[in-house]
């Protein structure tokens, strides 16, 4: 066996020796990776917190947004360069840590990192600020007076999941508003965020103290309390139970931004179901299902397919099954934990049982359980799939029926992928928006949100900042105190 050792986290002001470490072991096929994660004492957490907050005040807040974008742009350019040592390390180790196929990780990284290049970052800022200079200086306001947007001195991120690179969204958002950032990485993918922080410090040493990347066991209360007590904003990803617990520990004076688990669906209209177009749509649907094995909040777990076109919903389900079988050859699904395999098994067994007793239900899948498509002709149920390339495909008379079917689950809705003609797209978009869906995209793009998208319908940057306003009354009064007053 080849053993590789990595240290996760990024701890400004602390040396490796003065920190306690714990080892997380990742095993795939013939490789083992021991990742040491830092276990900080309360005093060390305090020390890091203070350092990051002070550095953000003393340095980061003196930069303009344009300067910050320039630094991030250089970091992203490095990571897009396949010869760069950081990039090589990511391509080498992230498949080992997450279990995802290495080609899928490579393509995923490139596609994802592209959304953080300079022009994309400018879109990011423009998306939330009509006048981005408001992040640098007081700007005149239409109502009168002036205003400036201040980012938090300390933004705490609780990251979750195993999708490579996920922490970049909130970390870069934090940097763009000049926040001091402390993030907690998940045990499922503890490396990426720390690497990115190191790379930033390499590019701009004065940023070295503006970011820290920590680890603790999920749900451990002591480090959370210590951090949250000093945080201006706490941003957390996770299941609702975990988010609820975190909420209980965030002081009422800090802002809390929870991002819960979500469910995505796809919708295929009659217009997309002729013999020429249906295969391509099925291919893209299968891609959305296979990409990161449905671990993303935007991943589809069900598709609704309209009846009455040249290709029937049942035929479309067969196409998707075929495409998933092809993807299994190209990008094999990662090995599952017993718990995950149990979840897939529960999905398959449940559908198998229903298929024996209810006509119009059918389960397609390979013997090893690498992918599964459950076709549902008549039933009006709706539930998440078993994940890891399992999906339900429902036949509906009209996609409007599908909107009604998912509407009761408003708190969990996020992305809907649509294959429909323009007028249909906009008509459905209005219905879906009213039902609580926050992102509508093409099938095939579900797992690759655009730069500056509104995650769960919220504002990436606006939610982080506070506005400081100079009222016009202050201006008028100040005139009275000027040296040149008449």
């Amino acid at each position: 066996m080849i053993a590789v050792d990595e240290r996760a986290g990024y701890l400004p002001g602390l040396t490796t020796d003065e920190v306690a470490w714990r080892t997380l072991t990742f095993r795939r096929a013939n490789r083992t990776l021991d990742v040491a994660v830092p276990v900080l004492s309360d005093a060390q957490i305090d020390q890091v917190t203070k350092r990051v907050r002070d550095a953000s005040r003393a340095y980061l807040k003196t930069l303009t947004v344009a300067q910050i974008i320039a630094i991030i742009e250089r970091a992203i350019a490095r990571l897009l360069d396949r010869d760069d040592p950081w990039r090589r390390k990511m391509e080498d180790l992230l498949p080992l840590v997450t279990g995802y196929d290495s080609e899928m990780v490579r393509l995923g990284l490139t596609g994802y990192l592209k959304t953080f290049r300079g022009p994309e970052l400018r879109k990011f800022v423009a998306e939330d600020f009509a006048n981005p200079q408001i992040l640098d200086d007081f700007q005149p306001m239409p109502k009168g007076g002036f205003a400036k947007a201040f980012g938090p001195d300390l933004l705490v991120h609780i990251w979750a999941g195993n999708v490579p690179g996920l922490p970049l969204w909130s970390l870069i958002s934090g940097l763009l508003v000049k926040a001091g950032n402390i993030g907690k990485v998940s045990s499922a993918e503890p490396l990426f965020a720390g690497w990115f922080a190191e790379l930033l410090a390499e590019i701009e040493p004065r940023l070295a103290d503006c970011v820290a990347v920590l680890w603790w066991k999920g749900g451990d209360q002591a480090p959370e309390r210590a951090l949250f007590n000093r945080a201006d904003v706490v941003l957390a990803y996770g299941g609702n139970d975990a988010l609820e617990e975190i909420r209980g520990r965030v002081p009422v004076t800090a802002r809390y931004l929870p991002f819960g688990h979500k469910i995505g669906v796809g919708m295929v209209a009659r217009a997309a179901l002729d013999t020429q177009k249906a295969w391509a749509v099925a291919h893209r649907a299968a891609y959305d299902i296979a990409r990161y094995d449905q671990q993303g909040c935007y991943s589809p777990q069900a598709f609704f397919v309209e009846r009455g076109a040249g290709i029937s919903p049942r035929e479309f389900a067969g196409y998707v099954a075929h495409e998933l079988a092809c993807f299994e050859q190209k990008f094999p699904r990662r090995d599952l934990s017993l718990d995950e395999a149990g979840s897939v098994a529960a999905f398959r067994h449940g559908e198998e049982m229903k298929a024996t007793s209810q006509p119009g239900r059918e389960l397609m899948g390979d013997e090893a359980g690498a992918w599964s498509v459950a076709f549902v002709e008549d039933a009006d149920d709706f539930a998440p799939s078993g994940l890891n390339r399992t999906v339900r495909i429902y036949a509906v008379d009209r996609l409007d029926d599908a909107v009604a079917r998912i509407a009761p689950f408003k708190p969990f809705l996020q992305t809907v992928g649509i294959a429909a003609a323009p007028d249909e797209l906009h008509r459905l978009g209005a219905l879906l928006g009213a039902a609580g869906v926050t992102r509508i995209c093409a099938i095939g793009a579900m797992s690759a949100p655009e730069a500056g998208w509104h995650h769960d319908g919220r504002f990436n940057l606006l939610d982080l900042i506070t506005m400081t306003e100079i009222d016009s009354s202050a201006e008028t009064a100040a005139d009275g105190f000027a040296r040149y007053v008449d």
Partner: protein
Amino acid sequence: MTEARIIEQVLALIAAEDASEAAFNRLALDLFAYQFENNIPYRRFATGRAKTVRTVKDWRDIPAVPISAFKDLTLSCRPPEDAVRVFMTSGTTQGGVRGKSHHPTLAVYDASMIRNFGQRVMQGRDRIRMGILFPTEDAMPNSSLAHYLALAVETFGADGSHYLLDESGLDSARLFAELARAEATGEPYGLLGASYSFVHLLDDMQRQGRTAALPDGSLIMDTGGFKGQSRELEAEDFYHLLSSRLGVPKRRCINMYGMTELSTQFYDWGNDTSPSVKSGPHWIRSRVVNPLTGDDVPRGAVGVLAHCDLAHFNVVSTILTEDAGIEVEGGFVLLGRADGAEAKGCSMAVEEFLKAAQG
């Protein structure tokens, strides 16, 4: 084969000293043929997996019904209305839908329980004064555990055996009186019931600052674990507390692993070491399998448990559980549930969705 003939054979096997692989296999295949013929949903399920009387030649090939199916299907060879008793799961998962096992007679269930309990819990003793930490059979007519414990009292309970649980909870006064009585008289005492009731008992004892030193021959039998309860204890701590508060050695603290979907239970030989090794009698056999393929995992690897219980004659003999386990010398070690409750990514998983949907 008729039901009467099947019952006769199963009872004979239970009564036998042991079962050879061949004898077990023979009856398992007869039972599969009987269930394939008479249990229509099971036949559809088996046929869907291309398993028929003709293709199944070994008990390991008998298609295992996932326990979730007990919630969707009525799995019974006799018409369900012929059942003298229907045991139901607690319905804590899957939106309150309860899995059912229909019993047209309890003769086989009872014979299985009595033979096994005598060997594994009583270990040669005829009767013992019992305190039961669970509601009565009248209070919970659909609980297999209530019936099991009633049967334990009836068959193995000495005069004065009693229930310690009612609608208002644990009868602490009676419990402490019984503990004092046992200490004073030296008559062994057996406490049997649900694991979480023992936690309440331990909490009560601690609150009142009590300990007991039960006489030699006393025993404790708990079952069910703590999933979904207000408090969870590690097995090691649990048996340490039980043993030190009640004075029953850990090797006489026995954990029973049973399911509504079976007619036979598994026991360990005490809890001197954790986790304990569970095993069943000669009329039930278990495999550790990959939940997706149903194939045996390599020996020593973690998988989910599949059981072939010849006493579950009216329903299906062979089930696939959601319990993770590992095969070891002399049986298997239980490792909790493999139900996908812990999502890895940020995609909503079924368990969380159901929980949220139930409010």
